[in-house]
Structure formats: C-alpha cells, structure tokens
C-alpha cells in the first residue's frame, strides 16, 4: 500500500500519535504532494477532457530519474548534482509524456485511459525488474543530502523567528505547500489566457475547435506534458519525504486516490484540488485513530473501502464534487 509514512505504521496507531505534530506534519506533506499530482489530473480531466490514468507513472519517472541521476544507481556513488537532476528529470518525464501521448491521444477516452494505466504499470514493472538501474525492490536512497542541508537552513530561519522546536519535517511541509500554491496560481493564470480558451473549446467540442483552425491534438499533447511535469514534481517530493524510492510507492492506487481528490474538490477548479487533498488526507489518516476492536490490517482495509465507497457515492449523487459545477461532469460520449 502506498501513502506510507516515513515511519513504520505498525506502532503509530496510539493516542499519542493523534496529537503528535510530527505525524500531522507528515500528513500535511502527503496532502501537499497530492495537490501537485492532482493539479495535473485537473488539467487533463477538468480542463482538457482526457482521462489520464497514468499519473503515477509520471510520478515514478520523475522520482526515479532524479534519484538515479543523483546517485548513479544502486551501485553508484554520485553522478549529477541534485539540483541539476531536478530539471533533467522533468525533461525526461515530459519526453515520456510525449512518447505516450503522440500515439494514444487519438484514441477514444476509455481506450486512452487503458493506454495510460498500461504505461504507468509498465513503468512500475520496469523499475521493479531493472535492478541494476533502479535497485529493484530494494529501491534507491541517499539522494537527498543536498535537500537536507537546505532543510537545516530553513530550520535555522524558523528558529530565529522564535519557534525553537519545529517538527523535523516542517521545512519540507513549507516548501511543498509553497510550490503547490505557486503552481495552482500559475495554472489559474494560464487558464484565463487565449491558450486556456482554446483548451476549454477542445474539451467542450473538439470538432468545433478544429473547424475554427485549432490543432486540438497539439493542445491535448501540451496538456499531457504539463500533467507529466506536475507528476514529476510530485515525485520529487514523495522521494524526499520518504528519503527512498521504491516501486510500491507508484502503484495504481496513487492515481486512483488522485482521482478521488479530484472529484472531491470538483472538476474544473484548481483551488478545489487543495481543498480535496486536505480533506482527503486528514480524514484518511485521521481514521486510523478511531478506536475500533479491529486488527491493524482490517483498519487499513476499511480505510480503502471507504475511499471506494466515497468515489462511488460521489459519482452517483454529486459527480461535480464539492466545488465543481454539475455540467462539468459530462464528458462527450
């Protein structure tokens, strides 16, 4: 299961954890990471009308290329500077996005969904099996030393303004959310441009857009490339949070949770994504503390059952989510 916290959950479920700021900081980081991931889904689904089930795959490529470039693989001892690996990993992820999009965007919506999930799973399986490059199941670590020094610096600033004992991961929480907010603002701005207008038209009625001289395919490809970029960025934060990259972090459930958050916040609302992510993760993690006479694995399963039920119920009774508009749900059949 993904959404793993940086410490072993087995002994986390105690009442002390409920008030533990370290725990909630971790949850906040997860929420922020998923905001970035889901902004990509919102761009694709809410504003372009393409069903991208492969977002976890972009996350994986972003995280792994960053880790591999920085460490040089499981046997390596450093290759490229961490800060340089970041833009490179975005380039690599976007390249894959184009590779996937070029042949599959011409397919129908449901076929495209299958193509993208197949791509994401292929990425995960490759990461699992190409042991010499990715470390396989053992994963990769040791790429975050440069981040650690930044984190210490930020901690120093926080200390200097009077807070002497912030949670260990607080700097990461700050950075994730600052990035998430900046990206949300940028996407909002982008939507109000002529470019955004064409995108809306493509979503609304592709043929009408084409008849007016707009290259609908090119816009869909750009939308996918943007989602790939956002997925890569989310991948970095996931990797830094765990201090570790591993194939199990990129299973399809990640994309599905992203869709849950997307729907919760509402289609065609970038700020809704923030709302959806916070509500989802705080509730989801909060459910750990409900005192039920159940075993660990049962509580864990129950949480996912609830995710599934919420998805079903939302689709049935409020498909526009909490902030979306009803009409936004209808995707051209």
């Amino acid at each position: 299961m993904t959404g793993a916290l940086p410490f072993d959950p087995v002994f986390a479920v105690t009442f002390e954890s409920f008030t533990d700021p370290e725990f909630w900081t971790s949850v906040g980081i997860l929420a922020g990471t998923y905001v970035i991931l889901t902004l990509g889904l919102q761009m694709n689904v809410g504003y372009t009308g393409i069903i991208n089930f492969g977002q976890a795959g972009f996350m994986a490529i972003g995280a792994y290329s960053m880790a591999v470039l920085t460490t040089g693989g499981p046997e390596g001892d450093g290759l490229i500077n961490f800060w340089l690996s970041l833009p490179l990993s975005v380039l690599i992820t976007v390249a894959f996005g184009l590779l996937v999009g070029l042949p599959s965007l011409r397919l129908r919506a449901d076929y495209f969904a299958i193509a993208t999930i197949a791509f994401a799973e292929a990425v995960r399986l490759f990461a699992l099996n190409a042991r010499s490059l990715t470390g396989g199941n053992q994963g990769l670590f040791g790429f975050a030393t440069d981040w650690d020094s930044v984190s210490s610096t930020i901690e120093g600033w926080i200390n200097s303004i009077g807070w002497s004992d912030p949670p260990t991961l607080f700097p990461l929480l700050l950075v994730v959310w600052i990035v998430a907010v900046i990206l949300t603002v940028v996407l909002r701005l982008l939507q109000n441009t002529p470019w955004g207008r064409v995108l809306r038209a493509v979503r609304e009625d592709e043929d009408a857009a084409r008849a007016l001289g707009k290259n609908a395919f090119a816009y869909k490809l750009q939308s996918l490339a943007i989602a790939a970029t956002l997925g890569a960025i989310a991948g970095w934060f996931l990797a830094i949070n765990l201090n570790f990259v591993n194939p199990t972090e990129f299973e399809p459930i990640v994309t599905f949770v992203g869709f849950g958050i997307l729907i919760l916040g509402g289609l065609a609302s970038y700020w809704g994504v923030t709302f959806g992510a916070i509500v989802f993760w705080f509730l989801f993690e909060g459910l750990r503390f409900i005192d039920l006479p159940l075993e660990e694995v049962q509580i864990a399963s129950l949480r996912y059952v609830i995710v599934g039920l919420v998805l079903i119920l939302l689709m049935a009774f409020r498909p526009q989510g909490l902030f979306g508009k009803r009409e936004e749900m209808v995707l051209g059949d």
Partner: protein
Amino acid sequence: MATETTAATVAAAPRRNGGRILEAAEVVKHFGGIFAVDGTSLDVREGSITALIGPNGAGKTTFFNVITGFYRPDGGAASFAGSPILGRAPHAIARMGMVRTFQITKALARMPVIDNMMLAAPDQPGERIVGLLTRPGASRRREKEIRGQAMELLSVFNLEPLADEYAGTLSGGQRKLLELARALMTRPRMLLLDEPMAGINPTLGRRLLDHMQRLRAEEGVTFLFIEHDMEVVMNHADRVIVMAEGRVIADGTPEKVRTDRRVIDAYLGSGTVREAGAPEGGADGL
C-alpha cells in the same frame, strides 16, 4: 488566414484555375460496403454563392466532411485555392481559409458567446504558451482588438446583448447565427454552410442571407451551402449543384437545374417528391 479582399480585387485578380477556388475530382468515401460519396467531382468559382442540393442520403454532408478533413478520404483529390487539401487535417484546411459550419450547430454551450467569438479569431499570439511568455504585450493587445471585432460582428446579427451569456442558453436560431458569426471571425475566403436555414425563422433567415450577399459583394467571400429549402436555393444561389447517390448529377443555374430530368428523377426516386399519377418511389434513403 486570407486578407480581406473586395469584389473588385477578386475581379481584378489573375484567374488561377480559371477562377475556381474549390476543385474536387472523383472524391470517394465508403463506410463498410456503403459508398456514401461515389466519385464526386465539382468545382466552385471564387466569389460565387453555390447551393449543393439533393435528396436525403445523397452524400452532401459526407462530402463536406471529406473535403474539410473530418473524414479520411478513400479516393479522389481536391484542392482549395490551388493547394491540395484531401487528406489534410481539419484545422489546417480551416487555416487555409475554407471554414465550415455543422448541420447540428456546435455552439460551445458552456462558454460565453463572446468567448465563442474570440476563440475563432486567427493570429492570436496568446494561443501558444511560447507566445504568452515571450510576447505578453502583443497578446493582450490582440485580445483587445479581437474583442472589438467580435462585438461588432455580434451586433450585425443582433447578438451583442447576449455576449456574456453562455452559448447554451441561446435559442436554436440564435445559435445558428452565432455559428455563422463565429465562422466569419476567422476571416474565411470560403464558407461551407451545412443547412444554414434549418430551424430559423424567416426574419432571421433573411438577415443571414442579406449578410451572405453583402460578404460576397464587399469581401469576395465564396459560399457553398447545403440546403433543402428550394425557395432559398432558387432565389439566392448563382449556381446549383445536385448530388444523388454519392455523385453529382446536375450542375448549372437554378432555372436549368429545376427542369433537369435527372434531378426530378432523383428526387422522385427517393420518395421526396411525388407527382400525380407517378408510381410511389421505393425508399432509397441511406
């Protein structure tokens, strides 16, 4: 997109292709075993208003779809203003100056009327992300310009007060006008209209036809339209092309075509028109 031309400029321009702006030769389109367009050849003179008529199932809309790039052709060739177009992507053909409307209007319902209009304008640097980043000023200026042009055009069709309404709230007739206005925003050289009169009341219809005539006279825009309303066809078209069973069966002035034996047979055969004493035609409709 083509620059504005006046009728005088059109008349004075050297005649390429003998003044033919659209040429189609043996265009073929089949679906499975059915040949919806079965070797259609026609040409349209620049600056003309040509009607494309024929019984239901003759292949008129399919032909439109093929030459505007929405269907892949199975055979033949076509060119617009001298450049080959068959098999090209629809957006590329639109950018060459040949713009079409749809039988069932495609007003972008969940976008405001003004957005529908501004969308259609050509040469928008803001439509490319690169343009947004490198020429933000130019993008903003163009937006202003387009907005002005859009409002002007909307007022011609009396749609100006509805500029901020969602296109989906417009009536059927208003949507048809919006689609025409929107198509005009693209500064086309030729407009292909698929049943422009269907579903609009006579007053609005007359306004539309007046505007067509004016556009032809002042700007040299060529029109090819599919119509079933014979009154419109007879009174407003320079020339009539008749299709039946996927082919052109007659081509000439409205008067000539109306009395053409083959045309009468084609309509009779599909059961559209029945003369007293003549046997009921078998249902031919595809």
